[in-house]
C-alpha cells in the first residue's frame, strides 16, 4: 500500500522533469522563419492541374494522402467498435440508472419541436458541406460531424429515443467504408495504383469536377457521420 503510493508520487516527478528537458530542447530546435516546403511546393504546382480540385487541402486529403484518410476512417471505426464493445457488455444492474436521459431531464417541448425543424436543415447543411468539399473549405469530416449531430438531436430531445436503428447505422458504416476502398481498388484493377483518382479532373470550380474526389468525400462524410452517430448513441446510454 505505502509502496504503491510512493511509486505513484515518484513517477510523475521523474516524468515531468524529463518532459521539461525535452520541451526545452524542442524549443531550442524549433525553426523560426520560413520552413522549407519541399512536398508542398510540388503539390502547389501540380495539384490543380492533376486533380482539378479548387481546394488544395482536399486534393491532399483525398489524393496525395488518401491513405491517411482511409486510416483515419478505420480509426474512427475501431473507436466506435471498441466503444460498443466496452459499453454493451454491461452487468445490467447499473444499466438503467446510467442513462443520461431520465424522464425528468426532458428538454422541453420547445426543444423537441425545434429539433424536428432543425434536423432536416442540418442534414442539408451537412450534405452541402460534404459535396462542396473540393471547392470550398469543408468536406467529409466537417459535414459528417454535422450529419451525426443532426441524427443525434432527436435523441437528445426525446429522452434518448434514437431515430435510426442500429442495423441502418451499421449498414451505412460498412457501406461507406467499402465504397471508399472500392473506389480505390477500381484504379488498381485497371492497372493503376491504389486510390489513384479516376474520371477526368474537369474544370476547376465546377461541382462535377476533380474526378472521383467528391465521391470519395461523400463516402468519408457518410462514414464519419455514421461512426460518430454510433459513438454518441453508445455514450448517451443506449445499449446496442
Amino acid at each position, binding site marked *: 500500500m505505502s509502496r504503491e503510493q510512493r511509486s505513484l508520487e515518484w513517477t510523475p516527478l521523474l516524468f515531468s522533469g524529463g518532459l521539461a528537458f525535452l520541451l526545452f530542447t524542442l524549443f531550442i530546435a524549433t525553426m523560426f522563419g520560413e520552413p522549407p516546403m519541399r512536398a508542398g511546393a510540388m503539390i502547389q504546382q501540380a495539384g490543380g492541374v492533376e486533380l482539378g480540385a479548387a481546394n488544395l487541402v482536399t486534393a491532399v486529403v483525398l489524393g496525395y494522402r488518401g491513405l491517411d484518410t482511409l486510416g483515419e476512417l478505420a480509426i474512427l471505426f475501431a473507436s466506435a467498435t471498441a466503444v460498443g464493445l466496452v459499453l454493451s457488455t454491461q452487468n445490467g444492474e447499473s444499466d438503467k440508472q446510467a442513462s443520461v436521459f431520465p424522464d425528468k431531464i426532458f428538454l422541453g417541448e420547445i426543444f423537441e419541436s425545434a429539433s424536428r425543424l432543425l434536423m432536416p436543415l442540418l442534414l442539408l447543411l451537412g450534405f452541402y458541406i460534404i459535396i462542396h468539399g473540393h471547392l470550398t473549405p469543408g468536406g467529409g469530416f466537417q459535414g459528417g*460531424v*454535422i450529419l451525426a449531430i443532426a441524427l443525434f438531436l432527436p435523441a437528445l430531445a426525446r429522452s434518448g429515443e434514437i431515430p435510426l436503428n442500429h442495423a441502418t447505422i451499421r449498414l451505412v458504416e460498412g457501406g461507406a467504408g467499402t465504397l471508399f476502398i472500392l473506389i480505390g481498388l477500381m484504379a488498381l484493377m485497371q492497372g493503376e495504383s491504389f486510390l489513384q483518382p479516376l474520371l477526368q479532373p474537369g474544370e476547376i470550380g465546377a461541382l462535377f469536377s476533380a474526378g472521383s474526389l467528391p465521391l470519395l468525400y461523400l463516402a468519408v462524410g457518410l462514414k464519419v457521420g455514421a461512426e460518430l452517430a454510433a459513438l454518441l448513441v453508445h455514450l448517451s446510454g443506449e445499449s446496442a
Partner: protein
Amino acid sequence: MVESIESWIALLLVGVMLSAALVALLSRSHLVAVVSVSVLSLGLTLLFVLLKAPDVAMTEGVVGAGLSSLILALALSRLGLLRSTKAGATDE
C-alpha cells in the same frame, strides 16, 4: 499595420487559450473545466482562421468546439460529475 493587428489578435487568442487550459485543469467544478476546454477549442478555431487554414478551422470548430464538447457534456452527466461539485466552489 495589418501585420501588427494580427499579432495582437494572436497574442490575445494565445493568452485566452493558455488561461482556459489552466482553468480546465485547476478549477474545482468539472462543468467549468469542460466549458474551458470548449473555450480553448474556440480560440484554436479562430487562430486557425488567422493562420489561413479555413478547412482546419472548420474542422476544429465542428469537431473540437461542437462534437467534443457534446461528448464531454454527455460524459459529465453519465459519470455523475455534475453534482459532485465540492461545497464552496459555486460558480455563480
